[in-house]
């Protein structure tokens, strides 16, 4: 089983061989020596990889697409995208790039009321620029662009209530 993984600006191909027990693992074609044990639903993994020890929790990101994971190591939370061949196929058919192009979408980080839409389709925006203001928990929250890019579509209107993770802006 081959997985393509994208984590921040890095990409890996992780191969897991199901025919051996425990499964043999390769990263970018190079075998790595691993020992692991898991707890409960496999989300807590104690991993020994080339004798380095990691205490890891893997969580599927709720409300996001398949393949989006949060991985907790050393107190840090990493957002990463991992897909097997089946997911890759679906993605290719949909004509999307690796990583599910999650950064080409802006989702609502919390439920709230859209009080202002600051940009329109076709606008060029840079990373950190405010796009939409959502009022939640009596606070105004500026939702900023995570990328430099051009807005393709804005899916919400001023005065509209949005659920958590609702798709708000699509980039080209």
């Amino acid at each position, binding site marked *: *089983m081959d*997985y393509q*993984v994208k*984590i*921040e600006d*890095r990409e*890996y191909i*992780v191969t*897991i061989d*199901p025919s051996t027990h425990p*499964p043999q*693992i390769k*990263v970018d074609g190079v075998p*790595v020596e*691993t020992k*692991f044990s*898991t707890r409960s639903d*496999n*989300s*807590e*993994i104690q*991993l020994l*990889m*080339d004798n*380095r020890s*990691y*205490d*890891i*929790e*893997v*969580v599927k990101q709720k409300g996001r697409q398949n393949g989006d*994971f*949060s*991985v*907790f*190591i*050393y*107190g*840090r*939370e*990493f957002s*990463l995208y*991992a897909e*097997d061949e*089946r997911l890759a196929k*679906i993605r290719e*058919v949909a004509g999307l790039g690796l990583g599910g192009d999650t950064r080409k979408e802006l989702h609502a*980080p*919390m439920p709230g009321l859209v009080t202002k839409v600051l940009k329109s389709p076709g606008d060029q925006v840079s*990373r*950190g620029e405010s796009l939409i203001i*959502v009022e*939640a*928990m009596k*606070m105004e*929250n*500026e*939702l*900023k662009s*995570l990328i430099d890019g051009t807005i393709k579509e804005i899916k919400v209107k001023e005065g509209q209530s949005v659920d958590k993770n609702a798709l708000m802006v699509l980039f080209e």
Partner: protein
Amino acid sequence: MNLPSPINLYLAGARGSCPTDTGFDTTMIKKILIANRGEIAVRVIRACREMGITNVAVFSDIDSVAKHVRMADEAYHIGPSPSSESYLVMEKIIEVAKKAGVDAIHPGYGFLSENARFAKMVMDNKLTWIGPPPEAIARMGDKLEARVTAVDSGAPVVPGFKSKIENVEQIIDEVHKVGFPILIKAAAGGGGKGMRIVNNEEELPKALKTAANEARSAFGDDRVYFEKYIPKPHHVEIQILADKFGNMVYLGERECSIQRRHQKVIEEAPSPIITPEIRKKMGEAALKIASACGYVNAGTVEFLVDDDLNFYFLEVNTRLQVEHPVTEMITGIDLVKEQIKIASGEKLSFKQDGIRIHGHAIECRIYAEDPAANFAPSTGTLRSYVEPHGVGVRVDSGVYEGAQIPIFYDPMISKMIGWGATREEAVARTRRALTEYRISGVCTTVNFHLAVMDNENFKKGKINTHFIEEQFPDNVFSSKEEDHVYKAAAVSACLYDFLENSKLKTRVSSDGGRESNWKIAGRRMGVSRTPEK
């Protein structure tokens, strides 16, 4: 008197082992109601337990299984989840206090802690209020009056106009004397409401009007005043303790410059910029202001400090602060116990020259917020919650694994305080402790704190109130890890997916007899079907 060494204070084992070190006379206060929730309620419960005082918690609907309720000796339901219908309902809290037969009420911070009317109501009901006199709360709660008090007591204030502004003509000479930019502020203010920066004379009339309008709608009080605007100040505050006999001490300062939305997120003590001479000057100024308003109990006098170490009075917080632990860690003084002792009429057991500052402490407030989305609040259930431990680490929290982070209250999950003999060690220890946190289920600010601990300017102590926007302009808070960490993250996500999928397959095949063949066929088709164009 012999102060407990800070080393003993933070080593958990030493804490409870000396119940007589306070010499506390429990004939005065035997039972305390804590009119709060979350970590601060837990903090007060711990102090009570060490002093042999029975503690009573109160809770709203959603907090019925909250940590403070689980830890308390007794707990009473006080209403629905919104704080306006529970934690803020004064009559209800007094009613519970009487029913439970408590002697005193500790308000924590937030909620009713700075409500003079509530303090008075507590006292009118013959209960002891663990906090300053209502008159002092009222006087310091009004920013204009607080400023007048500070000026009268000789404390430096930011140059400006100290009474209500009626019109532009009235202040224009003063404005020119002070020089632009100026800051217009609301007398009843807070949270940035009614605040306007004015860069030149043309902007002034409009800014005065909008500030007054905003103040009226936010506080029902349109009085505004102005101050010189200090562009990149440090926020430094002095902790004070005062007993009922006029004895007062200051316990050094806390640097609270790292803020988002004008709210503190990282605090440390001592400040990396304050010298012993300035500390003494600020401490003495703080005590003068406190005496001028008849202050009793624990309080904090906040100052703005510019790069040349000029300091200006800002305001007085008439309560225990969120960041009080950093002071406890470097002085060895338990502020909550001192509050209770003062309220019960004891004299302070130490004098100014008995207070020693030992080492350095840093507090990280872990919020359920998404730093990448401009610190937007995040709510939900804590899927996992693992706290750091080890030498020099203190965690004050009001949650546990599986607990809810409700939308009704402040989204702070936990406070982590790292102590070190030097600032350098404190930073390294805080970073180490942060790596031991594991909190999933909600977004948290742990990544943000790690990125700050790795920031070169932070390490050098170069911080001011604009630190976050200057150092992290694009809201990306990723501390760089070594290659192998990314690789391990990649492998673990794939392993998880692989193991979960094989579990599914095993399950399908092992209970094939009970599973509908249609379902199995459908699932297979779902996997192998090629999409039609």
